[in-house]
């Protein structure tokens, strides 16, 4: 059984690609066969975050247009054997993605026996975003605790509930999860930032993960190693928890409070 998961948000810059890369790695690290697809045609970036930008020969649009076989376009990850990346095309042709083309590629990946297909959606609500979510079984809606991100997420939730194959066929719809990123417990405590519970209440959805704001995320994208692979980082542990929850484990949320600094750390500044 293949499960198709879309990582989406509406608003740009909230951490969709970072999340796609880390969740894909997390699933693969647990032995799942995973392919992660960049749907941001014209603005390819997943390859950079995954650290495989110099190995892109063929892309998603090449496969759709029949310029190459699917196998030629799948980039095998060098760290995790069961992980594959399908890069976005850098074409400026907006019509390069078609519903039939996307379906053909997804069907072929399903026939290949992948456990998970992750669709990294572009920002906005245009064609790329629409096609990234259309065939999904599940959706991870990435949201920052900030007004414009929360509002846009609600808009995306409306689209997931109406403009997807599952919604149209009426077979239960797409299962939706919230994933909060850039969470700053210190600012939440001082009333400057909405809390997990606030966001949960406004959007009426369960939270599958809360990733604390962390300098490790930028360091990870700088080096092309998804942050989940940096075992020292809180962001990594938070992503790994989210992956476990995606797989059905029930774990309490962590990193919702500011870490308590020990006596020596406070004395000598740590």
């Amino acid at each position, binding site marked *: 059984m293949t499960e198709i998961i879309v990582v989406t948000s509406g608003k740009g810059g909230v951490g969709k690609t970072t999340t796609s890369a880390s969740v894909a790695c997390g699933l693969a690290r647990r032995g799942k066969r995973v392919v992660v697809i960049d749907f941001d045609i014209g603005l390819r970036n997943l390859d950079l975050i995954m650290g495989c930008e110099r190995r892109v020969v063929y892309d998603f649009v090449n496969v759709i247009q029949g310029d190459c076989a699917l196998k030629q376009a799948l980039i095998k990850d060098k760290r995790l054997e069961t992980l594959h990346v399908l890069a976005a095309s850098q074409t400026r042709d907006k019509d390069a993605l078609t519903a039939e083309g996307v379906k053909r590629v997804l069907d072929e990946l399903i026939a290949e026996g992948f456990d998970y297909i992750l669709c990294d959606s572009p920002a906005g609500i245009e064609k790329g975003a629409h096609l990234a979510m259309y065939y999904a079984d599940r959706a991870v809606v990435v949201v920052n605790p*900030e007004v414009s991100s929360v*509002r846009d997420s*609600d808009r995306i939730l*409306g689209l997931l509930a*109406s403009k997807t194959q599952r919604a149209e066929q009426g077979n239960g719809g797409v299962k939706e999860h919230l994933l909060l990123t850039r969470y700053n417990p210190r600012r*939440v405590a001082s*009333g400057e930032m909405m*809390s997990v519970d*606030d966001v949960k209440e*406004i959007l009426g959805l369960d939270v599958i993960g809360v990733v604390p704001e962390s300098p490790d995320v930028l360091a990870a994208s700088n080096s092309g190693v998804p942050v989940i692979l940096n075992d020292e980082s809180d962001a990594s542990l938070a992503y790994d928890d989210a992956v476990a929850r995606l797989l059905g484990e029930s774990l309490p949320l962590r990193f919702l409070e500011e870490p308590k600094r020990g006596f020596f750390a406070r004395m000598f500044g740590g």
Partner: protein
Amino acid sequence: MGLLALFRRPPSSASVAKERLRIIVAQERSARGSPDYLPLLRREILQVIHKYVNVDPEAVQINLGQEEGHEVLELSVALPEKTRA
């Protein structure tokens, strides 16, 4: 400024954000799914009714619902007291 105001803390910006979002999200959700022409349709129907009866703009309700596989356009107009007699 009264003395009490010195001790009263303004609401935190997070709670202001939450309140604003609660309102706008509820508003956008209620408009969701209805076709784009609905507001215009409502206005035109109101104009036609207005030629004959002086109704309150708020008294015209238009709803689009689902019923056993087909869509139902429901129009309800509350007429003012006098015209009913």
